[in-house]
């Protein structure tokens, strides 16, 4: 048997022997490749990594990783991850989900895993469509999206995944794009290093049912004007010529051009470690075409994790009261002897 020693773990070691079956050109391929690259670099032994997914195109992910994995049921992956992590803090547990899986059928579990701050990494592939069921609109589809189930355009207002996560008290929130491979790798690494629930939204192109929906953020000719890459402690600047920025006007963000009237000092400074999540939330509400959409780490704070607290209550009780004996448990009420 060959055990993998840490320094030699490569992306290839993390590939399973299963044939990858996403459609040609699907954004999932890139995410899979960058995940292997990211994990090869963080020094966690392969056997300590677990991928847990729900149902949907993205949820086939665990089959393609040569780690431990579980392909569960629709929307519920965070619950399996929670049950596992609560007594196995030694494991690096990743939840792979999509916009339908995570925000529609599984919305409840997503917010509660985040609220509890279980030390799991939730990676939500957002392609704004149902792929596996062949192209119905999803809870993140833009209003007016024409699909088989919305031939005249969807009338439903979409959710913003990061706003949900921040509203659910997330301690780590980030966004990246499938084709921006270096950024994607770096965000996955940051998620891996975070202690607590890390929530990452990845814009993922569905070649078949929603092709090009993120072109505004990926097309070389326009992306610099339509996206804003966040850096901790730096002002919010974007644009091809790096001459545009975001400043606060009353309680609302505002796009400004850096010219004589407005200087860098007027702009918002990104603080991913702010305890108060209001600014992170404000950034999560910035939507193309009115605003550039932010990429990077919106929020990264430390709060005790769920399993740390659960296990410390147990350890503390055992430390002060001693480990329980079954004899005591049996006699934990009045007893009497019959001779």
């Amino acid at each position, binding site marked *: 048997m*060959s055990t993998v020693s840490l320094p030699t773990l490569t992306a290839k070691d993390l590939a399973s022997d299963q044939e990858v079956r996403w459609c040609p050109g699907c954004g999932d391929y890139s995410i899979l490749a960058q995940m292997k690259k990211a994990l090869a670099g963080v020094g966690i032994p392969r056997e300590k990594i677990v991928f847990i997914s729900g149902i949907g195109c993205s949820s086939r992910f665990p089959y393609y990783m040569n780690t431990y994995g579980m392909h569960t049921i629709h929307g*519920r992956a965070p619950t399996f991850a929670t049950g596992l992590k609560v*007594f196995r803090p030694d494991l690096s547990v990743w939840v792979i989900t999509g916009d339908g899986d995570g925000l529609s059928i599984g919305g409840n579990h997503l917010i509660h895993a985040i609220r509890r701050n279980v030390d799991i990494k939730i990676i939500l592939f957002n392609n704004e469509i149902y792929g596996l069921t062949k192209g119905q609109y999803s809870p993140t589809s833009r209003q007016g999206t024409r699909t088989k189930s919305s031939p005249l355009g969807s009338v439903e207002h979409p959710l913003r995944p990061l706003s949900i996560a921040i509203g659910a008290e997330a301690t780590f929130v980030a966004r990246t794009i499938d084709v921006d491979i270096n950024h994607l790798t770096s965000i996955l690494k940051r998620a891996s290093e975070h202690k607590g629930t890390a929530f990452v939204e990845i814009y993922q192109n569905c070649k078949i049912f929603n092709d090009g929906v993120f072109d505004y953020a990926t097309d070389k000719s326009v992306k610099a004007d339509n996206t804003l890459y966040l850096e901790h402690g730096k002002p919010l600047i974007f644009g091809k010529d790096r001459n545009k920025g975001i400043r606060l006007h009353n309680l609302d963000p505002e796009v400004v051009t850096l010219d004589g009237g407005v200087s860098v000092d007027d702009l918002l400074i990104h603080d991913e470690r702010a305890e108060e999540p209001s600014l992170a939330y404000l950034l999560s509400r910035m939507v193309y075409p009115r605003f550039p959409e932010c990429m990077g780490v919106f929020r990264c704070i430390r709060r005790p994790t769920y399993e740390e607290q659960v296990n410390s209550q147990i350890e503390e*009780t055992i430390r002060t009261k001693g480990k329980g004996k079954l004899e005591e448990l049996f006699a934990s009420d*009045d007893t009497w002897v019959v001779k």
Partner: protein
Amino acid sequence: MSVSPVESESAGQQKQHHRIEELESVTIRFAGDSGDGMQLAGTQFTNASAVLGNDVSTLPDFPAEIRAPAGTLAGVSGFQVHFSSRDIHTPGDRLNALVAMNPAALKTNLKDLEPNGILIINSDAFGKNDLQKAGYTSNPLEDGSLKNYRVITIPINTLNRQAVAEVKMSPREVDRCKNFFALGVVYWLYERPLEATLRWIREKFAKNPAVMEANTRSLKAGYNYGETAELLPVHYRVPPASIKPGTYRKITGNEALAIGLVSATTLAEIPLVYATYPITPASDILHFLAGMKRYGVRTIQAEDEIAAIGMAIGASFGGAMGVTGSSGPGICLKAEATGLAVMTELPVVIIDVQRGGPSTGLPTKTEQADLLLAMYGRNGECPVAVVAPCSPADCFTMAFEAVRLAIRYMTPVIYLSDGYLANGAEPWRIPKVEDLPRIKVTHPTQPNSNGNGSAKFLPYKRDERLVREWAVPGTPGLEHRIGGLEKEDVTGNVSYDPQNHEHMVRTRAQKIANIANDIPELEVFGPKSGDLLVVGWGGTYGAIVTAVERAQRKGYSVAHAHLRYLNPMPKNTEQVLKSYKKVLVPELNCGQLRLLLRGIYFVDAIGLNKIQGKPFLVSEIEDKIAEILAK
């Protein structure tokens, strides 16, 4: 009724006011408003009787509303205790005595009191308004409608206020002690020692000396009142039962279940993760387990029922014993995840404390109508093991069994308890830890195949019982993926192959069927063959065994068999069923076990079915036996 008075002193003796009569068994019910503390009074009375050496069996009955309007019929809460010098199995059919703290309690409970039964009434609660709330048009204390009972009216509020007058408390707090006054009267009536209850009061109210003092005074005052006021010319004694030697405690089904889970996992040396969503009547299990941190128990109050079972399965994937508990409505929600555990072949114990259904149904009442749900309530061919305890104390044994079978066969096990077992109590003979079975858990550390020259772990390679290995994350070299898509035999890779699918469906079914080799045979109480076999399952055990016992004493050729393993059933089930001319299946549903027995064994079973949210009376089963055998 099972009371046979034996006078210990002749009626002619003059030297004492009170005669003492010895009784074999007594059934008493405490009934009052849900704010009157009747559950507490009943529990304390049970403890006192158990500690005295009686066999006891209890039936709490509470309203679904936490606080229905005071004094109304909907707000009545009751606690029935059957205590005896014999081995008993049920909380009793007819009441020998009833304590009614208000008109509503009298109205809803009187029908269960035997003629000439003792009726203790709090006369202070029978004002015009109180009577009206209970729907009485005339005062039953005055209109002669109670003349067939031995009525003892006591102005409990007044006497209780006098008893605690010196304790500094608000009038409201004073009145809250009145259940202890009533309890004191009953302790006198049945010669119960006060010590256990006084100790409980001291411990419970250690931080509130006023309440401690007041409750102590109320209890003693009630007792003394009984003694001095000559309430009845007689009082009663129920001598200790002659039961198997050992150390005993009183236990409810939910307590026994919680202790069983902790014992099984402690002896198996694996962590217990209990994930659940609060639901009546299963929530107590969470409360008990949440207090067992010293035993390393992790409890998770999940966001919903589905999350709860997901967490349990996730824990099992990691090498813990994942357990989830609920009642019928929650079990419905867990169906899909149960199927996943069948497909991934992971151990998980799913507790269903059944209540009246369908839908929200009767949350606080008992029923046995989830048997077919447990057997078949999932998509696809999805067999799981099903077990059912038969008495509150048996909840311990069957919890142990559920854990053992789940681990030994890598399968979900559904554990069917019910509201009656969960809240009912009986004495439990405390087992010796060294006598309990050890459950063996093996997590492989080495690959189990050598295909293509390189060592590999094949997650769906099976042993001779068809059970796969439980390899857990963290083990180097055994990395593997499992999931809900159909598995290729042996490798566990996703497979849509038609032949493979059929093979896997049949293999999973055979694995569950193989459990029959690992469980005890069906025991028969009574003749090995004869005219009638009464077959039951779950919480009806006590009523059936008592009815069959009585029928046997009357000379009927009748036997009883009780199924504690429902899937698979014991190997000798068919042979037992076919040894009698007729088979009767009493159930608190419309005939679910009967349908199974007919379907599986072609037995023309007769049903006795009751769907009232209440357990069987012994007499109901007894009458049915007589009816069948008279034909």
